[in-house]
């Protein structure tokens, strides 16, 4: 039976943890709050170490909390991160996504910095500042940086944050043993979609949407073991999904993967969601890493990386690339469908469309079509934000009084 306006807006008949108010996806003030309380407090992946292999190699990164960053490898081969902002007049220091810079010189007034963030030259410094201000006062703003969990470069703009290891906790347990060899990024692309970052992370956090994917239905959903996969939640909002054996040759034109992954059973598939918007997706022969970089409440940039082993032979690498592209490239069978899904949510959840609730109410003993992974995420989101995901403005709490 269809519902009238009152019924449409009625609070869902689920526990409060099993639905959210759609305004958490659309409101500017909530987004700004997320930048302050979530993105500027959490560890975020900026790039992979293989993207800056040599001394002085750098990679620019637009941090989801706001600051533009430079990740740079020093002469000592240590990776450090700095704001990509000149301390003189606030200009951008490095414009290109990658490069090699022994000396970082601002194009505006030629102030120069080294790869450890020290200011090494202020043009006509003595003449202009006399002894009031010098290089010692003009170092770059350094950001906490750690390498880990597959060689990714993690950054945290909160100087008071815990360590990366403490932040991740036990969440990477299912992948730890598979990430002990050096990895290399062979595929990179990004997409901008008019949707909220949480909706993308939601999609990575549930498998009920396998109904959308013909490839996954054929190679996974109808195969033995599919409904045995279980979600596990970890502190700080992370979650993992257990493995199963994918039957790739069930899809016409596909075939069983010849190149596997160290320690992973043939056809294996492990997925780990890291709060607030990163996903490790190891599927048989390729590790895919998604990094969500929200540009606004309804605008999302996602970086997609495909990784293989650094030790791959050309033949092994070619096979990994084929495996990746079959489902995950911009023309792949699955990724396009996933992105269409969240694009559709973004369309429907725009301001003033009268979208009201999103339901996370499926309970299947935390197996693959349970929506517990999302409930776990929103519990952490609510804790960090000091807002209830189901009642972000406290209206239900006021009404209850």
């Amino acid at each position, binding site marked *: 039976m269809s519902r009238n306006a009152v019924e449409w807006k009625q609070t869902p008949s689920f526990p409060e943890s099993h639905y959210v108010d759609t305004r958490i996806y659309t409101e500017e003030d909530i987004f700004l709050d997320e930048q302050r309380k979530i993105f500027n407090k959490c560890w975020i992946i900026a790039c992979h170490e293989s993207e800056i292999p040599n001394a002085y190699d750098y990679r620019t990164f637009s941090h989801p909390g706001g600051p533009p960053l430079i990740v740079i490898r020093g002469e000592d081969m240590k990776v450090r991160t700095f704001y990509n902002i000149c301390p003189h007049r606030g200009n951008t220091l490095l414009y290109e996504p990658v490069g090699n810079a022994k000396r970082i010189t601002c194009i505006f007034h030629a102030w120069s910095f080294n790869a450890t963030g020290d200011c090494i030259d202020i043009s006509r410094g003595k003449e202009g500042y006399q002894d009031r201000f010098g290089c010692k006062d003009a170092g770059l703003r350094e950001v906490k940086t750690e390498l880990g969990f597959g060689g990714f470069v993690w950054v945290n703009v909160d100087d008071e944050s815990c360590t990366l290891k403490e932040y991740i906790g036990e969440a990477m347990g299912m992948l730890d043993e598979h990430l002990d060899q050096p990895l290399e990024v062979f595929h990179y*692309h990004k997409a901008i979609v008019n949707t909220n970052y949480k909706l993308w992370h939601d999609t990575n956090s549930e498998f009920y949407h396998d109904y959308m994917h*013909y490839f996954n239905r054929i190679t996974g959903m109808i195969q033995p073991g599919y409904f045995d996969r279980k979600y596990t939640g970890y502190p700080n909002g992370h979650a993992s999904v257990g493995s199963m054996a994918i039957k790739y040759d069930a899809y016409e034109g596909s075939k069983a993967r010849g190149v596997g992954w160290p320690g992973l059973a043939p056809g294996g598939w492990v997925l780990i969601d890291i709060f607030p918007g990163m996903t490790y997706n190891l599927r048989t022969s390729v590790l895919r890493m998604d990094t969500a970089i929200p540009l606004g409440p309804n605008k999302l940039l996602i970086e997609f990386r495909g990784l293989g082993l650094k030790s791959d032979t050309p033949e092994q690498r070619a096979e990994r690339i084929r495996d990746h592209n079959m489902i995950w490239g*911009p023309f792949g069978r699955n990724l396009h469908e996933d992105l269409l899904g969240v694009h559709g949510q973004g369309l429907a959840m725009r301001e003033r469309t009268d979208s009201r609730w999103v339901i996370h109410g499926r309970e299947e003993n935390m197996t693959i079509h349970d929506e517990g992974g999302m409930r776990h995420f929103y519990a952490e989101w609510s804790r960090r934000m000091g807002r209830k995901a189901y009642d972000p403005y406290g209206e239900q709490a006021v009404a209850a009084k």
Partner: protein
Amino acid sequence: MDTRTAITELIHRSGLIMDERDFKGYLDLCAPDYQYRITAYSPEIRKDMTWLEHDKAGMKSLFENLHRHNSDKSPISRHINVCLVDIDEAAEEASVTSTIEVFRTTLDGGETELFAVGKLYDTVTLGHDGPALRSRNVRLDTRLLGYGYHIPF
């Protein structure tokens, strides 16, 4: 029709026929050993990338599976301009370089947006039955393709 004109027409026809989603018609333009690739360069990882690669059988199964997938239904329009035709009479083969712009027209209202630009690097085999596509590399300058697409350019 002279050879150069026949080759130029083949390249243009390949775009028009894909715009019509006449996949069988497209495969009929291809030699049995046809190889198709979409490639791009990523400055972020400083590498050439292959984003799609199929032989003729792979293209056929891709096309045959399409109707089972959830895809963007927006029509796209491939605008191809054949620039260079280098014919090797002895090898009965030609190398062709073309520019390509792909436009996408939205389903709601028909607004058209530029989807991608790049170049086509084609090898054309010349036989008694006329020219046929032996290989195509769609070399994309555009790397930001939004939610992507299921049908090759």
